[in-house]
């Protein structure tokens, strides 16, 4: 149970996973935010207004997957670091996972980082495609990681440091 371990259950994840049909259309944001807490900056982060927290601020966010284009602007804006973008159309065998990151050192594009699942378990070494700084005020980095397609819904963090070149 999430409330005992901090790890969302497969059912929790299933409840926010877009359809395979939607995944085939390109990148999409997924909010792994399962608890009703008073919080709504994600709604302001989305220029397309694809994220709604309704009827009141305590509701969990609902992303309209038909409106979301997976731009990732919400990733660094979520105070709970609970939003990820998954692009299963990235390559033939690879998906792109964009995840929030707030540790030093920050990996560089082209390096490989050790990918972790929701329990911190190592899943392998994956190529960092891009690193997007959050800026002076936001300060949260977005790491874009190329992972095997079957791990697109598993990889949610990277291990800090020890990044491999090439």
């Amino acid at each position, binding site marked *: 149970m999430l409330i*005992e*371990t901090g790890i969302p259950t497969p059912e929790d994840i299933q409840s926010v996973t877009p359809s395979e049909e939607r995944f085939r259309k390109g990148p999409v944001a997924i909010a792994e935010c399962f608890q009703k*807490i008073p919080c709504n900056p994600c709604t302001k982060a989305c220029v397309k207004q694809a994220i709604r927290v309704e009827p009141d601020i305590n509701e969990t966010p609902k992303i309209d997957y038909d409106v979301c284009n997976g731009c990732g602007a919400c990733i660094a804006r979520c105070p709970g670091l609970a939003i990820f973008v998954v692009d299963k159309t990235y390559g033939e065998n690879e998906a792109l996972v964009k995840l929030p990151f707030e540790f030093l050192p920050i990996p560089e594009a082209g390096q490989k980082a050790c990918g*972790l699942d929701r329990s*911190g378990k190592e899943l392998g070494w994956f190529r960092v495609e891009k690193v997007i700084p959050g800026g002076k005020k936001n300060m949260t980095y977005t790491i874009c990681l190329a992972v095997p397609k079957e791990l697109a819904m598993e990889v949610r963090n990277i291990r800090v440091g020890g990044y491999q070149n090439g």
Partner: protein
Amino acid sequence: MIKDTEILVIGGGPAGLCAASAAASLGAHVLLCERDYVPGGQLVKQTHKFFGSEKQYAGDRGIHIGQRLVEDVANNPNIEVLSEATVLGMYEDGIVTVLHDNRHLKIRPKKTIVATGAAEKFLAFPGNDLPGIYGAGAVQTLMNVAGVKPAEKVLMVGAGNIGLIVSYQLLQAGVEVAGVIEAAPHIGGYLVHASKLRRAGVPIRTRYTVKEAYGTDSLEGVVICQLDESWQPIPGTEENIPCDTLCLAVGLTPLTELCWQAGCDMAFIRELSGHVPIVDENLETSVPGIYAAGDVSGIEEASSAMVEGRLAGFSAAGALGYQPEKAKELCAAAADELRELRSGPTGAKIMAGLSKVAAKQKAEKGGACIC
């Protein structure tokens, strides 16, 4: 010499800063006393982003919110800030005494807003006096204010928001976190904070407590054990966790000494984490002219403390005759904001506590006995 002031705000944390700005925005003159070197309260070490809505600066980091509130106060000509000023007493004749710059000041405010915040609770177990055992707040201060790496390897006790957040910040500072243990059956803090820690590899174990801490000159390790459904240790579940630091994040208790001394009606309300002053809808206590805002009247998130501060500030200024109509509207808007923040499941406990406060307040106003 007695210094007269219209509104005295005691405490420069989120509630006090917002109270000062709110009251001054209506034209009142405010003196804010802060016992620390600089105002900002606990915001000065909150490096994480805050929850809530835009109105409470959600999405901004606590440190940045603190800077903004401190700047607002500093730039307001109606507000005088006295740092390193500890309020010592509030007396029947309305005089408030303050220790500042080695002098004993006497202040005579027309209204007083008590925003003294809270203190960390401690936990009783063998070995709890060993060096290396800290409140989580102390570790957070060492790390985020003083820039000192506080430990090599930490065990965190308490999976409320403070325990979860400080654990995450310890990881950011390069400290190993052996785990977070929690005596309750559930994680008490926001689950997104828990998930953040968990995917960084930190185990969170509910129904666990500290059996004992050991070490010769300082902490060398902690023995933890599992608790059964009636919170009793289960024999044979002991586990040894070697670590040089044990962090206690087992809750806060309101800092109410001044309210007691001022003669405010007080009540023990579990949901609000201790004895709290009984306040009305404008956050005025049973002593006319004394208001309470923020953690002093019940432990809650900083976002609520800010809004409570504003509510108390507008109330006090309005009561002094500064734009009373506008003050009333602003109070109503702040009350709505508070209702919204507290309306979800995570606000249920606070709401239950506040309804007890309201019941006691009404009973008292009606002259009925509440004992």
